[in-house]
């Protein structure tokens, strides 16, 4: 009976059991709990098990205080329902419709610890052989930390809920068990409006449009629309003109240059999964040369290639580094927090996460330089072609193309490069907890969002979306409702959705896209996704820019390239002993610094950056990040939002931003007032019809609620007005190495030291 509760000790994890509930649980389902509270269940949501009363320790201070309630595990979430009548939150503004502050979507559970008296032990799944812990501690992927005491409920209930949570959160399961499917079967998600929409790149039209927009001149491949060519390749994709039908299928898509974006000069960015080359077999080598030639032909016969696996961290490195990094924010108690505050900077450096962000940004700048300054085509590659390639290609486009810095543009970019681009979201998140996929788990997409955040914090006004938007997006990856992050690639998505369809007539199952934000937030909450600093480009700006930019850049640059061409041509004709060597010569990673080495300064990139920086900043033009030590920062909102001790009550960036939003709203109102005026005047002086909205939107700054730096994620009602006073200060400053005699000396000593 309990077999469904886990793979047991030695059994391999082959989830074949599709039913969610054990017979026991079904039984308890039938006898509805009288005393226990239930959350408002979502469509298709089923309660597996529950226990009551459970004490949830309060987050504010990790003393033994807390609230009693019911702890439940459903097919969607772990949920705690408080016994206390919920005080009507003063700031319900930013409520997620799918899960509340005491809910943890199953895919959002990161680690579970069992708390025994004074120890805590990581639970890895399976049946507990020893004593059941008295406490269950849940670390979430969105950095929340929950602690529940199980000692107050009946022992068997406690065991059951503990085992249930462990089972449903940590044990291997089949994709079909993911809540998204029962959710979708039970809801009819409305089609997203087509007018102003996120391009999903699931149809020919989107690709054509994007290529047209960037004036690219490549070949749109439609032959894979039913995955006839390859299951690995996207449904639709674009390759250089010179790639033939034959080339498309040669190595299952490996080595095939996939178009990402065209620069206005005509050169373009391509990415590919690298083709393993061997000394013995020169077929791949010949193929690769042909592909490179095809890329080169795209513009001025020039190409630079970059194997990202040579210079950027591997996905395992990324996973390791992030695992260390996130620990700084998964804080169980105040003492622990202040202890870690001592060595904050060096711990931060040691985990290497910020450096990975810097490396990715640097690589992207490098590619930007090739496209923008040298106007050469660039082909980036790595083994999968869908991890760091996605990071770099999307960053390059964000830096060069202001379209992608709008909200819809950014979402389209994620669709193009990541979703259609075949980033293996399912494997990278390993939310099915498959043992064989542990190695492939890695927060690559989060790394990308981190890079975007760095650009955002350095050049805020260039982005239409807000920091809050990025934070919410990073959380949404772990909400198992959206088709966006649930699959490994196009064909995987198509196959599963078709197979899961309730009836074959109705077509594939319709899972909501994460971009349909109304699934999670109401309109007012969605307002927080727009950045009040962003100003759309005016028509004046546009026309000015046009006149500034040489219109016939392509033709203009032709003569200068005339002398370039022969060398390039000769280069390709030269029979080098291995293509590796050729690639080596043409690599662009000339100034990639490994953190520990003393390479000469990256003069070229510095020069490129400084030249750009010396010019007046145009938020609708190219953006480059500053990569100096002080400029790469920690994404405070994402990582510090739940830690009580670092909330700045009444302060933080939101204090200023809410003032800007407020003024913006006022200006917008005035303008519509003016517009109405204009209209009424033209319609024969009918008198002013002033329809002031009766329900004014809750104004953030004006409301009596004092915002804190973790707005909008934590509401201020939780806060006490006591300041956080750092503890354990003394251990910190050990001046031993700072000449101990200085520390013990008098400020204004009787005898001044002799002048050295």
């Amino acid at each position, binding site marked *: 009976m309990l077999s469904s509760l886990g793979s047991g000790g030695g059994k391999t994890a082959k989830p074949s059991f599709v039913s969610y509930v054990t017979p026991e649980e079904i039984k308890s389902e039938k006898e509805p709990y009288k005393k226990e509270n239930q959350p408002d269940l979502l469509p298709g949501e089923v309660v597996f098990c529950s226990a009551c009363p459970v004490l949830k320790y309060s987050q504010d201070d990790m003393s033994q205080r807390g609230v009693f309630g019911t702890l439940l595990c459903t097919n969607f979430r772990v949920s705690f329902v408080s016994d206390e009548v919920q005080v009507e939150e003063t700031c319900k503004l930013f409520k997620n419709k799918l899960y509340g502050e005491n809910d943890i979507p199953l895919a959002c559970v990161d680690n579970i610890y069992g708390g025994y008296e004074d120890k805590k032990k990581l639970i890895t799944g399976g049946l507990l052989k020893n004593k059941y812990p008295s406490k269950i501690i849940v670390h979430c992927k969105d950095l929340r930390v929950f602690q529940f005491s199980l000692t107050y409920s009946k022992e068997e209930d406690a065991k059951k809920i503990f085992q249930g949570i462990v089972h449903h959160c940590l044990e291997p399961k089949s994709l079909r068990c993911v809540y998204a499917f029962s959710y979708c079967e039970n809801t009819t998600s409305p089609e997203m409006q087509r007018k102003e929409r996120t391009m999903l790149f699931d149809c020919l039209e989107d690709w054509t449009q994007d290529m047209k927009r960037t004036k690219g001149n490549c070949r749109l491949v439609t032959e894979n629309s039913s995955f006839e060519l390859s299951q690995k390749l996207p449904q639709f994709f674009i390759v250089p003109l010179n790639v033939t039908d034959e080339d498309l299928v040669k190595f299952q898509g490996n080595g095939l240059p996939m178009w990402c974006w065209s620069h206005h000069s005509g050169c373009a960015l391509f990415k590919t999964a690298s083709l393993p080359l061997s000394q013995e077999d020169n077929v791949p080598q010949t193929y690769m040369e042909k592909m490179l030639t095809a890329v080169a032909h795209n513009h001025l016969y020039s190409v630079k290639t970059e194997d990202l696996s040579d210079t950027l961290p591997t996905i395992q490195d990324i996973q390791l580094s992030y695992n260390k990094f996130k620990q700084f924010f998964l804080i169980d108690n105040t003492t622990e927090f202040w202890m870690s505050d001592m060595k904050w900077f060096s711990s931060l450096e040691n985990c290497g996460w910020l450096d990975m962000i810097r490396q990715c940004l640097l690589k992207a700048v490098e590619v930007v330089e090739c496209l923008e300054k040298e106007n050469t085509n660039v082909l980036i590659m790595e083994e999968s072609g869908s991890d760091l390639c996605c990071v770099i290609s999307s960053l390059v486009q964000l830096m060069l193309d202001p379209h992608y810095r709008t909200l819809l543009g950014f979402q389209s970019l994620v669709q193009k490069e990541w979703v259609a681009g075949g980033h293996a979201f399912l494997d990278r998140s390993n939310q099915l907890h498959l043992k064989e996929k542990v190695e492939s788990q890695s927060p690559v997409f989060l790394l990308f969002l981190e890079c975007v955040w760095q650009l955002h914090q350095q050049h805020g006004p260039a982005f239409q979306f807000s920091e809050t938007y990025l934070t919410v997006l990073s959380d949404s990856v772990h909400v198992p409702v959206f088709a966006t992050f649930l699959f490994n690639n196009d064909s995987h998505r198509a196959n599963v959705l078709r197979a899961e369809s309730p009836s074959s007539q109705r077509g594939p199952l319709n899972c909501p896209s994460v971009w349909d934000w109304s699934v999670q937030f109401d309109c007012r909450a969605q307002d927080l996704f727009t950045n009040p600093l962003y100003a759309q480009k005016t028509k004046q700006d546009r026309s000015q820019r046009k006149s500034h930019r040489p219109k016939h850049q392509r033709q203009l640059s032709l003569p200068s390239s005339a002398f370039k061409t022969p060398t390039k041509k000769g280069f390709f004709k030269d029979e080098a002993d291995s293509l590796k060597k050729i690639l080596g010569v043409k690599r662009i990673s000339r100034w990639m610094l490994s953190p520990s080495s003393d390479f000469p300064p990256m003069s070229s990139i510095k020069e490129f950056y400084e030249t750009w920086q010396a010019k007046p900043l145009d938020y609708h033009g190219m953006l480059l990040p500053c990569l100096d030590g*002080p400029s790469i920062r920690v994404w405070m909102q994402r990582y510090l939002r739940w830690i009580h001790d670092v909330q*700045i009550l009444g302060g933080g960036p939101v204090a200023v931003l809410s003032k*800007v939003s407020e003024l913006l709203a006022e200006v917008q109102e005035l303008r519509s007032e*003016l517009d109405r005026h204009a209209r009424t005047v033209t319609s024969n002086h009918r008198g*002013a019809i002033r329809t*002031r909205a009766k329900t004014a939107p809750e104004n953030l700054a004006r409301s009596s609620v004092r915002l804190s730096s973790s707005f909008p994620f934590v509401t201020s009602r939780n806060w006490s007005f006591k300041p956080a006073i750092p503890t354990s200060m003394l251990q910190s400053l050990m001046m031993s190495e700072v000449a101990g005699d200085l520390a013990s000396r008098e400020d204004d000593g009787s005898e001044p030291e002799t002048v050295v």
Partner: protein
Amino acid sequence: MYFLMDGCGPLNHRVGSGPWASRESLKMGPLADVTLLPGEERVIEHDKDIIYMCPFNGALKGKVFITNYRLYFKSADADPAVTLNVPLGVIGRVEKMGGASSRGENSYGLDITCKDMRNLRFALKQEGHSRRDIFDILFRYAFPVSHGLPVFAYLSQEKYEENGWNVFKPMEEFRRQGLPNEKWRITFVNETYELCDTYPTILAVPFRSSDEDLRKVSAFRSRGRIPVLSWIHRENQAVICRCSQPLVGMSGKRNKDDERYLDLIREANGTAKLTIYDARPSVNAVANKATGGGYEGDDAYQNAELVFLDIHNIHVMRESLKKLKDIVYPNVEESHWLSSLESTHWLEHIKLVISGAIQVADKISGGNSVVVHCSDGWDRTAQLTSLAMLMLDGHYRTLRGFQVLLEKEWISFGHKFASRIGHGDKNHADQDRSPIFVQFIDCVWQMTKQFPTAFEFNERLLVTILDHLFSCRFGTFLYNCESARDTNEVRSKTVSLWSLVNSEASSYQNPFYTPECSRVLYPVASMRHLELWVTYYIRWNPRIRQQQQSPVEQRYMELLALRDEYLKKLEELQLTDSSPNSSHLSNSSTPNAASPTQHITHLHTPF
């Protein structure tokens, strides 16, 4: 804070503008386009070429001149021209580098160490002792005090609309706080500085203590710096008192008068226990007994609790800032930025100072009176009391209130500006020098970063204050204490920095300021939130973008302008339109008016 990070204040206008601030092209005669200050005179114009060894742009050939106020350099061939405009007060050390026989390009010249986080190197041609003149003049005018010359503040003829010396009137400030009252009196016992020569003349003390008591207490406090009131809480009457350490010594001396006096402070608002914050680490406090000092023992002061705040001394702070300079100038340490930053301990010291002040403010908010001291009560004590007051009292967060705070807690209470900065003094290795005031301004900056709407002044004010801390153009930060200022007639013979500031007040104002006087601000003293003040410490580096205005500020100003424009248009329309119910629109003309706002999606302002 993220949106403001890359350069906040409009910093272009400062006195010690870096090579990047001014880039006019050099078409007029060499050096003809410099406007000198009234009273400023050229001392030497070096007609030969000199080479400025710019750490960012390489060697730059140009001309240099020196006045009694500044050193000015302008490059000849770089485009745009690079200028250096360095007040001589900023110069901490001038050295010759290389000798007549030195080989290698540009190895012969001058090496100038500045007090504002930069070094300047000039190379000259070796022939004809070209260096001697310029070195001698520079040495003489950069260190006028060591050469019996007046500092520039006494030569300046600058005139301003407002007289900054009127900003701080001690009696007015006491009255603002509601003093004197039935528990606290104002005493003039120090009118001639005989009680304490480093204190101001007007002091607030417990009502029940006589001037005779004060004299007795002064004998038991280091340098006579007795506990006096700095600030009183309007509602709960809790007070912040400041003083120096008690002269306990090795034998553990006690002084009944001092004990009784502290109890009077406690009594004044019925506090059960008086909290004494000793800013020092306890080891240092103990060690001070050897030189006659010490701390308040439990036995002697039964109604008091003593808390050590573990803030280190001036020497530690000096070394810390020196280390910081090493990692940011001329180049920002790249590969191990964070661990290098940590190893300077600078932010950790900042954290200790701020968290000490939070504890003081928290005690006061809870209705308990506190006494703050360190050894002499003019460095760490001033930091703690003034930061606590900034947290507690919104008045000090205004442009003028902040000036009062500095005048009161730092200048009048004898922070030894002359010794700590070394104004006009050639002795660069003087152990009395220490960036205590810089550290305090840094703490204030950290607070303004955490509470961007709580301060009326902006970052530019803080940078301007630090620039003129060194420049010697104003009398504000000259001398160690009020008695010395009186002797040297600072108020009548020099101009106050606040004359400059208040005559162009608008450029030091924070547009986001939202007054909330009664609110206590508790910054978060966690390393997670403390950050290096890049736009001050690394401002000479051209890679650090020095924006005239932060993008957020710029956007805000644009929106304000747009709102005014729309309002005007609407008003015009309403004049022509006879509709009677359109008048209420003008309600929304004040920035904080609670006008209901209608929500419009996808509407963007056109700029």
